[in-house]
């Protein structure tokens, strides 16, 4: 059963049967099984033997294989997984689920500052003057971060919430700016223009630390407050108030979440927000910065190299010196080009140029936009190995499923959080049955494929990472324990770096200042899935407090808050369609249709509906979403689909 832990050691488990079926199929197909097909033998030998026998490694050499790594596992596991992809499979086609959420933050921040990490720390927001929460319902999605925000508010900070919905985050705001979905760039540009015209731009900082200001000024010039009001639906006075508050603040924090990134132009959205920080100098100082709130640990853009364009420690693959360092450390040849990202890998599956996937701890069959398409593509693979703690929907499509351990409670290692803090995770639970640790499985498999990797424990993996990543060099396990986690960068074992990034931009010395931060010249581009007479309602998606992603993890406890999946409408729309709370309706988009009960939420506005992806088995919301991807980061536009609501025939309702 999905959501239930499995272990190969136990009889009558889907996995064992699948494994046996697979060996039988191989034997029947004239393939010689490398191990005795004895089902009573060590099932692990059989599982791993089957994989190592399979042409996955041969295919890989022709870039026909890919690896999905798991941001929610430990850093150590991600390091070993990407090493497996690069050394054993010989490919840079390695990526993880952050592609579906925060890759645009990484791409945008990297383009501006050369590093994908959020620039500030949680504690700093307690001491800031203005907080902008843009496209973020942190009260629900990041509750403990929001407690730091609340401390800031109690300390006198003014908070502005920019969100199409009047969320529980917005309830704490000085002012809520309820913009239309997908009009973030017009809003940001109008704020930028207002700051420039009001003479509030930080000219000294712009002159010293940025490039492209004149072009930016010309770019935003058309976005007057009245035009922005027309496009975003937010009163001009409110936009002006936010612009003045942000620009006049001594210190200000700009935070965003998936409301910014899950668009077909997510990276452009992020750049548009970064522009505001460059314009006002709200970056690179204590309590002034940019804080993207991540959906998982380990997603700052290739901390551990489980990303197609970076080696561990955020180091660019295209840099020959970096490659040389890793080639000598790993005794291999690192492909001198970027690999395919998750989105491109799915497209390559469609074309048939990607034939085998090793998927660790991911559930793309349910988490990808347009899930039906994702399932079809995964099913068409020649060989799919899934390593997970659950028999997820993706695992059910696999040729072989390897039972792993839960990173946060069953293994030792580290994770990196949204404020770049690397913290220790520790093994508290003995895993069930014959489930094995991810690193152990990967190393065993590598050994069978001719690469003997010997790691005594997670710390040994970590120390190897430290030796190749200057940003992590100073973080020994001992120091991590002592300081309750350390934020990267930490190049020295003797001292700690500031809690914020890019202080260099304020240096009077050009050499220290380094590369100047360019303004992002990005244009407004409305959502791909336009509303019209046929599909008049804008559907946006998000999270609830007590649930998480596809619900595999969070479905396990009896939350009194949980009420299942609903399509949430505003009272006006409910009245217009003549539907009441609990009534099932058909929700259709241009891609699919689902049946869901109605919930009425006054936080929504006419023409705006809200759903989550927490209960894909009840209501598969991602059948409605559009796979319109950000061309830079590959993130799909989960936040904007066009739908229509239809009452079901009476007979269906009565049942």
């Amino acid at each position, binding site marked *: 059963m999905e959501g239930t832990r499995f272990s190969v050691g136990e009889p009558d488990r889907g996995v064992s049967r699948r494994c046996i079926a697979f060996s039988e199929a191989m034997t029947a197909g004239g393939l010689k099984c490398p191990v005795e097909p004895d089902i009573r033998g060590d099932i692990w030998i059989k599982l791993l033997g089957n994989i190592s026998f399979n042409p996955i490694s041969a295919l890989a050499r022709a870039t026909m294989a890919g690896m999905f790594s798991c941001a929610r596992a430990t850093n150590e596991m991600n390091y070993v997984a990407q090493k497996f992809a690069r050394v054993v499979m010989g490919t840079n086609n390695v990526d993880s689920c952050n592609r579906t959420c925060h890759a645009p933050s990484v791409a945008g921040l990297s383009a501006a500052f050369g590093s994908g990490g959020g620039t500030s720390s949680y504690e700093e927001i307690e001491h800031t003057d203005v907080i902008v929460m843009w496209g973020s319902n942190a009260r629900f999605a990041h509750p403990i971060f929001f407690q730091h925000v609340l401390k800031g508010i109690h300390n006198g900070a003014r908070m502005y919430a920019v969100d199409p919905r009047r969320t529980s985050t917005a309830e704490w705001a000085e002012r809520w700016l309820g913009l239309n979905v997908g009009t973030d760039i017009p809003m940001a540009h109008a704020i930028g223009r207002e700051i420039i015209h009001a003479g509030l731009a930080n000219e000294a900082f712009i002159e010293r630390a940025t490039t492209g200001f004149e072009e930016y000024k010309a770019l935003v010039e058309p976005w007057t407050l009245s035009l922005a009001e027309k496009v975003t639906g937010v009163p001009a006075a409110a936009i002006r108030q936010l612009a003045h508050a942000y620009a006049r603040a001594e210190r200000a924090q700009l935070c965003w979440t998936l409301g910014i990134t899950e668009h077909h132009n997510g990276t452009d959205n992020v750049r548009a927000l970064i522009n505001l920080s460059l314009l006002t100098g709200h970056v690179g100082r204590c309590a002034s910065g940019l804080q993207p709130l991540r959906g998982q640990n380990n997603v700052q853009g290739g901390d551990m190299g489980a990303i197609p364009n970076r080696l561990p420690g955020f180091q660019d693959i295209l840099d020959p010196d970096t490659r040389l360092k890793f080639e000598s450390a790993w005794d291999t040849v690192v492909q001198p080009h970027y690999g395919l990202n998750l989105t491109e890998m799915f497209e390559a599956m469609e074309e048939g140029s990607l034939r085998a996937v090793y998927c660790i701890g991911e559930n793309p069959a349910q988490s990808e936009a347009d899930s039906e398409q994702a399932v079809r593509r995964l099913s068409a693979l020649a060989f799919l190995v899934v390593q997970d703690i659950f028999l997820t929907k993706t695992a059910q499509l696999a040729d072989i499923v390897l039972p792993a351990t*839960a990173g946060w*409670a069953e293994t030792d290692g580290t994770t990196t*959080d949204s404020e770049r803090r690397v913290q220790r995770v520790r093994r508290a639970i003995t895993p069930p049955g014959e489930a094995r640790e991810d690193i152990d499985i990967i190393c065993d498999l590598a050994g069978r494929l001719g690469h003997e990797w010997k790691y005594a424990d997670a710390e040994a993996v970590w120390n190897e990472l430290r030796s190749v990543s200057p940003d992590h060099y100073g973080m020994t396990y001992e120091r991590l324990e002592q300081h309750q986690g350390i934020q990267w960068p930490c190049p020295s074992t003797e001292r700690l770096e500031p809690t914020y990034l890019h202080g260099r931009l304020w240096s009077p010395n050009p050499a220290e200042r380094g590369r100047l931060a360019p303004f992002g010249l990005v244009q407004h581009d409305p959502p791909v899935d336009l509303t019209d007479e046929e599909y008049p309602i804008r559907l946006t998606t998000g999270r609830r407090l007590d649930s998480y992603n596809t619900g595999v993890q969070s479905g396990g406890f009896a939350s009194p808050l949980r009420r299942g999946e609903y399509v949430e409408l505003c009272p006006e729309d409910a009245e217009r369609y003549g539907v009441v709370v609990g009534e099932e309706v058909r929700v259709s988009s241009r891609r699919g249709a689902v049946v869901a009960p109605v919930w009425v939420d006054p936080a929504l506005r006419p023409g705006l509906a809200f759903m989550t992806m927490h209960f894909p088995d009840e209501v598969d919301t991602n059948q409605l979403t559009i796979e319109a991807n950000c061309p830079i980061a590959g993130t799909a536009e989960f936040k904007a689909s066009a739908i229509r609501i239809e009452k079901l025939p009476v007979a269906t309702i009565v049942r």
Partner: protein
Amino acid sequence: MTAIPLGVPRRLVKFTIDGQEARVPEGSTIPDACRAAGKDVPTLCEGDILRPKNACRVCVVKVEGSRTLVPACSRKAEGGMEVRTDTERARHRRKIVLELLASSVDLSTTLRVAEWIKEYEAKPDRFGPEAARVDEEPRIDNELYVRDYDKCILCYKCVDACGNQWQNSFAISVAGRGFDARIAVEHDAPLTDSACVYCGNCIEVCPTGALSFKSEFDMRAAGTWDESAQTETTTVCAYCGVGCSLTLHMQDNEIVKVTSPHDSPVTHGNLCIKGRFGYQHVQNRD
């Protein structure tokens, strides 16, 4: 520019505890100093990371020059102060407070209280059985929390944790006045009809077990709760990317309770519903 924000510089304050010299950073409380000096002042409602509420009065000490005994938990150390923790008067006061509390409230799950009752020779029975106001069934209206009013000493820590010091949900408050005062959600409704978001931060601070996790409550009822067999391991939450520290309380390879270290720079002891209760998925083994 310094690498680490140093905060306001704090000088050391010099004073005496029971005649011994003590030096603590400015702003430290008397119990902080006592702990540093290896002295044990009992307390039930000490603020920890909440502001002290001065409710239980078990921690009283004598400060020379002060007419009355002072509650140590809220009293900051001052230069030249002479603190006596073990005078006859302080011991007598603690004894009375323990007797009053233990006679009226069920302190069976209050940490260390049995030890103090013995140490101060408190005799809660001397007020007779009528003193007890233990007549309520524990309230179980959801699968995560149990509210056992028989154990409540009205220290208000849960109210502070739910209010503007931590969670800012304001689901619980004090209803009634005087002897009728009790902690309640609005209209004394079931928790499920309240503003509660089930973060469990009130349980984190409850000193007596009046608020408890249902998992713990059920195990205690079944007689399987065994704190001596439990281990604690601190790890990182696997939900969102905030990176909250979780301390897993393990018994027989099962997670029986989740707390968070109060000195964690990320959580300061706070968690949300997912971190606090969302662990079941790792132990669904059938």
